[in-house]
């Protein structure tokens, strides 16, 4: 098959390299620039329908029961030459016992003024396993207002891992909301790694509902706020089922001045055998960490960079 080497795809690949994703055009299954589909390659085992809309696309992806896709599927949702109002709707249905690992890349090019909504719903069947990596490149010159919503419904014994990473140049005004309903013996792990720089306003909200017996949830966030940034974390856990467990772990680190940080934990238990825990830290980088590195000859700035890069990894 001849590759469509639209220059925007190459530009997107270039952005990905900048955020440390080493990928080539032939590795991409799908590339859309807002609502203009530039590339779509069939992936064995995946049924996917895409409908372009006025403001974006609607995508429905189905993985049949028992299908195991043993290489990562890479999808790009870009704003390379189109910005403005953008709504990106996706539904992923994974059948019983199926397994898949998906990378979605949100790529925002230079100079875009953008009001974007990513609305994603994932339905994970019994004992199925889904890993979803959502990695962003936001060009520094773009004006970004982004809302990313992820709803996950996990059936019995299902496993879901999600990583959201916005750690490169800027976040913009960025709000992300995860809502998970975790069934019996299912496990949901969601991680957010964010860097907020001057003028950015970041809100990360994780809601875990443990609806099945022995359901497990882990929400882990790492937010680095540099000079003049605002960041907020809201973590909610609802222990509704017997022997369900959820842990919320959020660290918000300040590097610089005029930073506003907020951390709001909400733990609600309606079953006395549920166990919900919350661990939060807000503030400067741990002095002991800096000193342990400075004792090796790193300056304070170098040590800070090492700690921050490690947290955002």
């Amino acid at each position, binding site marked *: 098959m001849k590759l469509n080497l639209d220059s925007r795809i190459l530009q997107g690949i270039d952005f990905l390299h900048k955020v440390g994703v080493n990928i080539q055009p032939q590795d991409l299954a799908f590339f859309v620039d807002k609502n203009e589909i530039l590339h779509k390659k069939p992936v064995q085992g995946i049924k996917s329908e895409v409908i372009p809309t006025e403001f974006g696309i609607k995508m429905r992806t189905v993985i049949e029961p028992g299908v195991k896709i043993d290489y990562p599927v890479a999808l790009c949702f870009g704003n390379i030459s189109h910005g403005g109002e953008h709504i990106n709707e996706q539904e992923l249905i994974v059948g019983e016992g199926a397994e898949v690992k998906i990378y979605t890349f949100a790529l925002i090019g230079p100079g875009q003024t953008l009001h974007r909504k990513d609305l994603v719903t994932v339905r994970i069947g019994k004992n199925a396993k889904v890993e979803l990596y959502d990695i962003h490149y936001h060009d520094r010159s773009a004006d970004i207002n982004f809302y990313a919503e992820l709803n996950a419904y996990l059936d019995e014994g299902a496993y879901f891992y999600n990583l959201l990473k916005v750690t490169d140049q800027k976040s913009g005004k960025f709000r992300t909301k995860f809502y998970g309903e975790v069934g019996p013996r299912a496990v949901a792990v969601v991680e957010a790694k964010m860097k907020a720089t001057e003028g950015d306003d970041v809100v990360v909200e994780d809601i875990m509902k443990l609806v099945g017996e022995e359901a497990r949830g882990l929400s882990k966030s*790492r937010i680095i706020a540099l000079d003049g940034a605002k960041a907020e974390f809201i973590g909610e856990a609802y222990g509704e089922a017997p022997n369900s467990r959820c842990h919320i772990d959020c660290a918000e680190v300040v590097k610089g001045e005029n930073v506003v940080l907020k951390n709001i934990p909400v733990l609600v238990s309606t079953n006395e055998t549920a166990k919900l825990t919350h661990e939060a830290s807000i503030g400067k980088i*741990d002095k*002991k*960490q800096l*000193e*342990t*590195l*400075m*004792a*090796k*000859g*790193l*300056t*304070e700035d170098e*040590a800070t960079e*090492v*700690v921050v*890069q*490690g*947290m*955002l*990894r």
Partner: protein
Amino acid sequence: MGALLEVRNLKYRTEEGKEILKGVNLDVKEGEIHVLLGPNGAGKSTLANLIAGAGGYEEPTEGEIIFDGKVINGKPLYERAKMGLTIAFQEPARFEGITVEEYLKLSARNNPDADIESCLRKVGLDPCHYLYRFVDDSLSGGERKRIELASIMCMKPKLAVLDEIDSGIDFVSIDEIGNLFKTMRDEGTTLLVITHRENIANIADRASLLCDGQIVETGDPRKIIKKFEKECLVCEVQNPSLVKEVKVQNN
């Protein structure tokens, strides 16, 4: 050989006015393993931090710290490290997202000859299992300490202050860690070792006893261990007879 580190009449008083170090005098000779003994709360870690410039202890209340012929009072931790003076903390920090390999490479950045894997093996950790582990909470206390020791070997400083690096390490035979210290010494790193373990003190070239913020005696390790056992262990925190003896000496 001459003194690599000279501590002269070092005093440290906290902001609240508590006197922790009351005039410490200590010489660490180039090429020796010098053990610092003393009961809990004697001021060993405070002295170690002042020597390294760590933990907010950059500037003593009084006195001088001379390293390699230069007064280093007030110099920041990393500058002292660049001069070849480092410290392994009693509780080294842990890091998310930093692998053992990266941590050791950072430690070795001014020592191009460092062999990271061999340093790991020397502290009893198999590189195959540990290089790609993170230096985070997933490591046990003993593993973290071993990695700290390996990082000092990678760095190969002129002087390393090791604050209870042996505690929590269950070296099958304690001789193993003693031999490690000897290897480090023979490869050019002078050691000031804070420990509570007699077996470690036994391998030292010299030892000093710190009690109630003062060095009571320096000399042959066996003699110092005896004094420590006979007089300090009797009273865990302060030994009145020792304190009296110190006062007599000072007058």
